[in-house]
């Protein structure tokens, strides 16, 4: 199918949807996955892995609440370590979803349609994983959970608005809210399709409630289009602002290696870089397992690899400028910091991240690499590792070697650091597996607009394609 086509015609000529589909086959292929009674063995296996790791997270957070964050390796001077590394890493990963669903929507990039749904889901789950850290890494999470919000209280106390952590609270909570609303609004027409196709009473009820009475009238569609444009408009600045604000946690400080004006753009590029790497990490196995190659074609894969390459180059430029400005600033401490970062006790991490994030990503210049799914999958995993290392290097090397040599100290993670980190990966996997099992992972109605039939008579096709029972283009039997 798509693979064969690509071999004969080259990636650039591959369409964003394989030929031979009509409204019904699109709906059927996507909708049968959540509606099917049969749970694939691979799903159960993957879900159990996620659940096991999630169990570890529950245990780690329970132990943390009982004992304090001293169960981690954080210390003075390295008071932030895995906690903030993981926070930044997860928030960064989320950015690809927002970029795909918002910016690419405004730019009318058709290839976004079939990957936007699960990229957005990835965003939401990544933000949930990220949100665990700023709350639980505090000494007293039961207070931090609400004292950082400006709520009216009898003491007349506000948060301290000069702190970048407060900006974080607003940036991340806005981001989470807008992402969830955007995702949900996009799901409403598809939930209605699921409601209409479900045969069991339970599914009909649940999907019925989730679809909020969607009937697919022209007025509904009009409102949907307006709402999604507004939400895309709201999300677009968030792609840039969220990681900019996260980078302020560092850039606003006085520490050498943190206090750098390059941080906002460099963090945003890094976020999109790691986000697209994660989308590829998820898309490559999922499209194979659920036979979605017709919708997530080599064109998508190719485009995502190109975005990775572009953002990877920006990140590489960031590394270069970081080093250059450490030198050019003339600041003794900045220069010393850079030397320690490259050749100090954590030098291995620095060079490893340069090798992965700047070196290996150059392979993506080659079309043959972008078309090689196993290689691309490995590369995307490595970029995720590389981006994690980047945050490790930024956070730990600066704190371990700042101004006063007498207080320098090394950071060594404990087993609880690892259990917590892998636990959030478990949370992510668990949510993601639940998502692909119970929610249409590709936007059915959007992909249908990619079909040639949708373009013949636009107004009519809409009505037919999205009507409450409007699947009846042909007589393909339903899989249940």
């Amino acid at each position, binding site marked *: 199918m798509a693979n064969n086509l690509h071999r004969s015609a080259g990636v650039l000529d591959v369409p964003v949807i394989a030929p031979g589909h009509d409204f019904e086959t699109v709906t059927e292929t996507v909708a049968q996955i959540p509606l099917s009674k049969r749970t694939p063995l691979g799903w159960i296996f993957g879900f159990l892995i996620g659940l096991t790791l999630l169990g570890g997270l529950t245990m780690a957070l329970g132990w943390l609440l009982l*004992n*304090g*964050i*001293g*169960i981690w*390796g*954080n*210390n*003075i*001077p*390295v*008071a*932030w370590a895995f906690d903030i590394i993981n926070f930044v890493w997860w928030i960064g990963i989320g950015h690809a979803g927002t970029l795909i669903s918002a910016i690419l929507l405004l730019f009318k990039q058709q290839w976004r349609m079939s990957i936007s749904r699960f990229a957005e889901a990835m965003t939401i789950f990544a933000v949930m994983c990220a949100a665990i850290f*700023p709350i639980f*890494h*505090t*000494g*007293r*999470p039961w*207070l*931090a959970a609400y*004292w*950082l919000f400006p709520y009216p209280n009898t003491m007349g*106390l*506000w*948060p*301290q608005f*000069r*702190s*970048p*952590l*407060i900006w974080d*609270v607003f940036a991340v909570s806005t981001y989470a809210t807008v992402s969830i609303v955007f995702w949900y609004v996009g799901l409403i027409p598809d939930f209605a399709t699921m409601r209409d196709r479900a045969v069991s009473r339970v599914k009909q009820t649940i999907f019925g409630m989730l679809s909020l009475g969607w009937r697919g009238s022209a007025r509904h569609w009009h409102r949907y289009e307006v709402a999604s444009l507004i939400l895309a408009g709201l999300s677009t600045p968030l792609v840039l602002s969220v990681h900019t604000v996260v980078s302020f*946690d560092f850039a*606003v*400080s*006085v*520490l050498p290696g943190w206090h750098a004006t390059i941080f906002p753009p460099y963090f945003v590029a890094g976020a999109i870089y790691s986000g697209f790497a994660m989308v590829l990490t998820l898309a490559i196995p999922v499209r194979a397992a659920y036979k979605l190659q017709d919708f997530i074609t080599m064109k998508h894969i190719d485009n995502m690899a190109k975005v990775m390459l572009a953002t990877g180059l920006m990140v590489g430029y960031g590394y270069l400028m970081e080093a250059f400005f450490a030198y050019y600033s003339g600041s*003794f401490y900045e*220069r*010393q910091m850079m*030397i320690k970062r490259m050749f*100090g*006790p954590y030098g291995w991490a620095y060079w490893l991240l340069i090798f992965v994030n700047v070196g290996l990503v150059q392979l993506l210049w080659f079309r043959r690499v972008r078309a090689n799914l196993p290689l691309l999958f490995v590369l995307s995993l490595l970029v995720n590792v590389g981006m994690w290392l980047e945050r490790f290097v930024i956070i730990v090397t600066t*704190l371990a070697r*700042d*101004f*006063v*040599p*007498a*207080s*320098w*100290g*090394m950071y*060594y993670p404990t087993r609880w650091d690892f259990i917590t980190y892998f636990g959030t990966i478990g949370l992510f996997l668990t949510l993601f597996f639940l998502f692909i099992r119970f929610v249409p992972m590709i936007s059915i109605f959007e992909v249908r607009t990619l079909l040639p039939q949708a373009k013949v008579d636009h107004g009519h096709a809409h009505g037919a394609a999205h009507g409450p029972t409007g699947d009846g283009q042909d007589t393909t039997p339903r899989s249940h």
Partner: protein
Amino acid sequence: MEVNFRRDPTIYDGRFANNGWLQELPKPVTKLTWDNAALIAPATAERLEVENGDIIEVTHEGRRLRVPVWITPGQAQDALTVSLGYGRTRAGRVGNATGFNGYVLRGSNSPWFGAAEVSVTGDDYPLVSTQDHWSLEGRNIVRSAALGEYTANPGFAREMEHLKLDKPISLYPPHDYSQGNQWGMAIDINTCTGCSACVIACQAENNIPVVGKDQVSRNREMHWLRVDRYYTGPIDNPDTFLQPLPCMQCENAPCEVVCPVAATVHNDEGLNDMVYNRCVGTRYCSNNCPYKVRRFNFLLYQDWNTESIKMQRNPDVTVRSRGVMEKCTYCVQRINDGRIQAKREDREIRDGEVLTACQSVCPTDSIVFGNINDANSRVAQLKSSPRSYAMLEELNTRPRTTYLAAVRNPHPSLPTHSSVGGHHTEDADQGSEPSGQH
């Protein structure tokens, strides 16, 4: 080889082995806590191919002791120093199983030193120190000059500033201190002997918990005041500098702006106050503190239950619980006490009336605290000394704790080392290897 026996700098001959404060007090030169070790010269360690914590077996007059080594710059070559008083088995809950018993080696023939044979065992032991780096890394945080240099240029310390700030730089209007007191401290590096009495005084005054060897090994000791020790010059015969480091109480405090819940705030006498009740423990303040003087309760370090410990605490100082940040307050409870006393007698607080705990025990009077609004106060006069400098002044933190640079007067026939404190990039990496065992 020679083995020397010394009374221990913290637990003396062992009689204080069960005292947690003294066990956790970093020993003045080695910065070791909770253990003693065989101090060994860097060159001798290199010859024996041992590193910090490697266990050697010392044989003296037929008696043997297995003891880990601790590489100590300035230690005489081929001479071990073992402090006495450790290795007790019935010292009590705190003192049992700490360190190595030097008395096992020592005999009445030669109670203080004698010939010894040393063999390397290949085993090691986790020794814990609070300071892993001995080099100044070319930084100007400690400044010193020889007497000749000082007489030629008394203001040498200020000239070592990397970036001179002529006037305060801030987006915010300055605090108004025209009325009342404005506190400050001057610490004389020249007279500090590193005895560390100030550290213990601070611990007693401010209800600072003992955290134990394991937590110290994770860099989590809670001392609000520490004494940093640096070596400069050749490693076999270095100059040693000691720098007591309490909170700098910065006027432009980097910790204050980053706290999301305003748990660390400026007060109208210039102090940088910690509000424990408000602290949620993000630790951002500690990260942003260039002096790294903040301490965090990573675990529940305080003992809330033992009745006798309740009686031991200073009732004027909050006992901090898990998850909050803490740091030197300039003994704000003593300031308040002085203020109350002065108010009752309807007068101003007199200079020297309020002594911080560290100041009150300093045998060399190296720490002077007082009102810098009063030009006649001792602290104000010391701050106008040509030797006075602010640590990391170029960061525009405007610290209230300032230092008086050291002036050394070495004997002319001794090899002299150059002045300390300029930015010497070329020797920046000297001694940068971690010497701690973690």
